[in-house]
């Protein structure tokens, strides 16, 4: 009986997945023909390779959409560097026009520049899965949850609007903490994110002013999102299959309550 350690494990693994060089393959095949134990070990390897390489589960469409937005956003912020090189070529007017267009796109997508989170990145988090249970209502402050970022507490919508807090998550992008609380009502779900630190740059979309606060409403990857500033921080509320009036009412609810 051959001890496990005496088996040519690396060669068997490589033979099973077809990566063993031809000269070694022939030599090992000859050894295997003379050894039932090696043949059995190879069969086990081949069975595993067949099973593992047959895995073809695709990523869920929601994840695909979120990743596409991230890669598109990153590609657009990277483009001005290329435009700078083009300026030295003969196509100065075209390159300048392109740089202006790219810069406009960057503003449109709300890039915060450098490593600060962007509005689209914050929206992705607001549409992502919860990673922790929802915070409870703050007994000391009616209408608010016991979770806040930079002094801004998350709203408790259950009593006034029927939206129950169902979960939360905390992420860090570029050293900035982004806390999100998720709410559900009759199968609809929204995420409400507050970004710590200075407000993020935002642009594009439709600007709506209510109660003295400017709310920016945009569509991204099939989701609707509203961005506004509160207490010097950026707040984002986003959801799929939620109409604009409902989302705006949720965004503005806290302001109305504060007033």
């Amino acid at each position, binding site marked *: 009986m051959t001890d496990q350690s005496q088996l040519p*494990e*690396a060669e*068997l*693994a*490589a033979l*099973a*997945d077809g*990566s063993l060089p031809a000269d070694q393959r022939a030599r090992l095949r000859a050894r295997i023909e003379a050894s039932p134990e090696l043949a059995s*070990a190879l*069969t*086990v*390897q081949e*069975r*595993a*390779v*067949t*099973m*593992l*390489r*047959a*895995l*073809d*589960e*695709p*990523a*869920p*469409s*929601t*994840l*695909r959409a*979120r*990743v*596409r937005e*991230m*890669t*598109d*956003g*990153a*590609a657009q912020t*990277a483009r001005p*560097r290329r435009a700078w090189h083009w300026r030295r070529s003969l196509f100065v007017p075209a390159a300048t026009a392109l740089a202006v267009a790219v810069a406009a796109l960057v503003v449109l997508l709300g890039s915060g520049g*450098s*490593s600060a989170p962007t509005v689209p*990145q914050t929206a*992705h988090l607001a549409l*992502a*899965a*919860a*990673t*922790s*249970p*929802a915070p409870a209502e703050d007994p000391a402050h009616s209408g608010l949850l016991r979770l806040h970022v930079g002094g801004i507490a998350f709203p408790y919508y259950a009593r006034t609007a029927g939206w*129950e807090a*169902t*979960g939360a998550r905390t*992420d860090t*992008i*570029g050293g900035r903490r982004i806390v999100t609380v998720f709410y*559900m009502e009759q199968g609809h779900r929204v995420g409400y994110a507050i970004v710590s630190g200075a407000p993020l740059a935002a642009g594009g979309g439709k600007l709506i002013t209510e109660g003295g606060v400017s709310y920016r409403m945009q569509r991204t990857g099939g989701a609707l999102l509203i961005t506004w500033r509160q207490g010097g921080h950026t707040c984002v509320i986003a959801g799929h299959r939620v109409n604009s009036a409902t989302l705006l009412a949720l965004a503005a609810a806290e302001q109305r309550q504060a007033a």
Partner: protein
Amino acid sequence: MRRLDPKSLGQHLDVLYRAAWALCGSREDAEDLVQETYARVLARPRVIREDERAYLMRAMRNTFYSRLRTASRRPQQAATLDDIEPPDPRAGNRPDRAAEFGEVLKAISELPEDFRLAIVAVDVLGLSYGEAAKALDAREATITTRLYRARQRIAKQFDDSPHSGEGSAAQRSLSVKENR
């Protein structure tokens, strides 16, 4: 060395998702891990020396460890039913297949860490031994040995009739799919 093109990263999503599932053992955690990996990689321009997929494997492994460290520091709280995302509707159309894939990926996630990383890098992500060795900061010979033993464990786990060689339900149905 070359600049990493954000646009080309999307093509690795499916394979990265399966790798993340095999690392974490659950679909929900895999989604979070993949999303966080992309967010980290895309947070600033990158210059890479290796293959994009190998680079993503390294980034995902680092993100995975960082999540583990964060989770170990966080007080443990029981999840409620509300925390569970509704299942992907496409998987709902093929519950048998979702279960098979989940079964195999879950088995990988239960392997010892070194074995798990080797099998994820080579058999799930499709990296060469050399790429896997670089991505995992290990020698190529170490990777092949770990891979051999990881495959051995997985094959045995799904082989419920070793003498007949018929394999488990998951294995049989995967074979049927291959023959279609």
